């Protein structure tokens, strides 16, 4: 038998890879490709509209990335050098520090200012990028996001600071695009390969203004959102297709990665446990197989924990931010906590103690700062926009409830494993935020409720899926019209958000 050597040589591997990639790109559904393109445009728009360090805690997150990339070490929690000299000088001489959260302030934006800053940057000593070693406000965060962002930093670290931040934000946008694609896939798994529902779910997430905004901010939340969305997909596949070892391990690795990204990633652990229980109830695997999977999952989590303890803790608390409030400070009072949660959503009853802390509840977290509070929360839509969003959210909730009730017997009852997984993610996330908010209020004598709507973004996929389920339950034509209304609102809100942010900083 003759071997066609010439034919083998004629197709070198790079071309094969390129051809494979091209095939894969061509196989991306057109609607998804368009939504990803839209997402890339929005992220680019946000990147320009938002000057350096004007996203929430962006100065601290960038300082963490910079120190890790420059030195290979993690910054310390306590100390007096939270950012590098380079970053400190940029914050000072470009007036970017007093700009944070102060609506009347403007950056040093002129050509003369840029020349001034360039001259300063050129005279900085060689260690000016690597001396932000201690006192970083996010130093208690686990290191995964910062380690990932160190890669583009190392590639482009030679750029001047403002250019470097712009480039790092471009890389950051990949997490946003990944989230959109993952929501598309989840919608396909849940609703069947119905393009309209997949488009609606992915479109709703892409056009949620706060998600777009965060895509251009150097902040660990972006990776957390992508990882928790991926974790939801993996969990759903475990309960829908069966708990094979690769699926269980994938889900576990994603949970571990989320926990290594941000304290709020810990919410995946109870969901992981409930998913395994549901999968074993549904598929009843053999004891040996179940134990093997359990051991694999435990080993993966154990490795993540060991890795974190060995390399990922900068000293002091194991987690910072919201997670540090889990078990700290004043005593926990169950009655007061439940009353606090009740009053978060509903007006207080006559004999109730007033809620601890400021007037801060459903409207502020689920509407105002979930849909749109940009910059350091100071850039906002007009109040009537939030009024309309609150009305729309109420209509949506009623519609969602109605759709669930009407379809319970025919469809939903059979999808109980998926519902348990999604509900457990929703309940764990919201309960976690309420708990840490209550703890924080106790610890700060009611001054700091700690939570904002941005912290709900890791479960933004559930928001997109709920909207899609509600609208998808309508008659076909009504569904097309209602979906169009929701997406049009998303477009207008997203473009408005970029516009008002650019005006706030540059006009």
């Amino acid at each position: 038998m003759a071997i066609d050597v010439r034919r083998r040589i004629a197709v070198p591997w790079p071309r094969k890879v390129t051809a494979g990639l091209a095939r894969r790109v061509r196989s991306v559904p057109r609607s998804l490709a368009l939504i990803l393109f839209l997402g890339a445009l929005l992220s680019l728009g946000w990147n320009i509209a938002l000057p350096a360090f004007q996203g929430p805690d962006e100065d601290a997150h960038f300082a963490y990335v910079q120190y890790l990339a420059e030195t290979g070490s993690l910054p310390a929690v306590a100390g007096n050098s939270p950012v590098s000299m380079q970053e400190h000088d940029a914050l000072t001489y470009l007036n970017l520090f007093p700009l944070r959260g102060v609506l009347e302030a403007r950056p040093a934006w002129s050509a003369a200012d840029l020349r001034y800053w360039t001259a300063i940057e050129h005279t900085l000593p060689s260690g000016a990028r690597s001396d932000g070693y201690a006192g970083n406000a996010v130093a208690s965060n686990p290191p995964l996001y910062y380690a990932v962002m160190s890669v583009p930093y190392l590639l482009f670290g030679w750029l001047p600071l403002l250019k470097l931040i712009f480039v790092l934000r471009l890389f950051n946008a990949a997490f946003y695009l990944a989230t959109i694609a993952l929501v598309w896939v989840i919608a396909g798994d849940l609703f069947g390969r119905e393009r309209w529902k997949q488009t609606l779910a992915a479109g709703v997430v892409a056009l949620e203004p706060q998600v777009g905004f965060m895509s251009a901010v150097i902040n660990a939340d972006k990776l957390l959102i992508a990882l928790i969305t991926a974790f939801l997909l993996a969990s759903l596949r475990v309960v829908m297709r069966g708990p094979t070892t690769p699926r269980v391990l994938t889900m576990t690795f994603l949970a571990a990665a989320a926990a290594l990204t941000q304290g709020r990633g810990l919410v995946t652990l109870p969901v992981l446990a409930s998913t395994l229980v549901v999968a074993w109830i549904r598929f009843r695997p053999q004891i040996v197989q179940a134990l093997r999977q359990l051991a694999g999952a435990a080993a993966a989590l154990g490795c993540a924990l060991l890795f974190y303890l060995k390399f990922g803790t900068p000293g002091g608390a194991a987690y910072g931010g919201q997670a540090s409030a889990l078990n700290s400070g004043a005593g926990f009072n169950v009655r007061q906590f439940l009353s606090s949660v009740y009053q978060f959503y509903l007006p207080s009853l006559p004999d109730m103690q007033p809620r601890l802390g400021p007037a801060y509840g459903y409207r502020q977290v689920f509407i105002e700062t979930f849909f749109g509070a940009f910059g350091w929360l100071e850039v906002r839509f007009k109040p009537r926009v939030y009024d309309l969003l609150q009305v729309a959210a109420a209509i949506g909730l009623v519609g969602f409830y109605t759709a669930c009730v009407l379809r319970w017997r025919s469809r939903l009852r059979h999808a109980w494993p998926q519902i348990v997984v999604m509900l457990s993610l929703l309940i764990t996330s919201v309960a976690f935020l309420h708990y840490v908010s209550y703890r924080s209020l106790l610890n700060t004598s009611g001054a700091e409720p700690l939570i904002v709507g941005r912290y709900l973004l890791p479960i933004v996929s559930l928001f997109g899926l709920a909207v899609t389920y509600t609208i998808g339950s309508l008659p076909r034509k009504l569904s097309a019209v209602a979906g169009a209304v929701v997406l049009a609102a998303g477009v207008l809100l997203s473009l408005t958000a970029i516009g008002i942010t650019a005006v706030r900083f540059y006009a």
Partner: protein
Amino acid sequence: MRRLPGLRPSLAALGTATLATLVIAGVLIWFLPYLTVQRPVMTGVPASAAISAASEFAVSPHESACMQSVTIEANSHQIEFGVRPVTLGGAGGPPMEVILSAPGYRSVAHLVGGYPGGRAALAITPPANSVIGSACFLDVGKQKALLDGTSEARTMSRSPMVVGAQPVVGDIAITFTAAGTKSLLGQMGEVVEHASNLTDRLVPPWLIYVIAVLVLFGVPSSIVAAVYFALREQEGGSAAA
């Protein structure tokens, strides 16, 4: 009355038309007035006011309060700041001179005495190009004046201040504005220039215009097209079923 089959809008056409109509209506109703309404033009804020604890800086007769590293743009025609006399009532605040200077540039603005206190807006001569220099507030009267500002750490600007001959921690809140009013569309050149400067010119102004047009038209067009393809595929699937 029976409807002709050919005139029944398809699902894709219905969804796409609704989406496109709403976006266009929103742009016309919401965006256009915002972009075209005339408003004062801020040309620079060397130092903003305090957020929670306002500070006042006293300037004695024949003394001055000077801030360094103040940027004055070529389109700045007016300086705004808050000032009041030490004692309320009486003859009012002392006359002041505001002296802006930088290499090759000097402008002096006069505030007539006798004011009750509040926000002052004085005309200045702008420099030919944007410059970085100093802004001095000279008390040319016979009593002290109090200038509004901040000494909060989080609102302090880059500009060091000297009152009399003493360095003082804090800033006088200063805003520069242009002559007259402009719409946001009319300010687009400056907005784009500022944005470009804050990327260290990595994104030049012309590219910002391109990106702005892409975002403004690309985002709505992409979602309209995505909805069209999705609903058309849905229709195809339903028909096949």
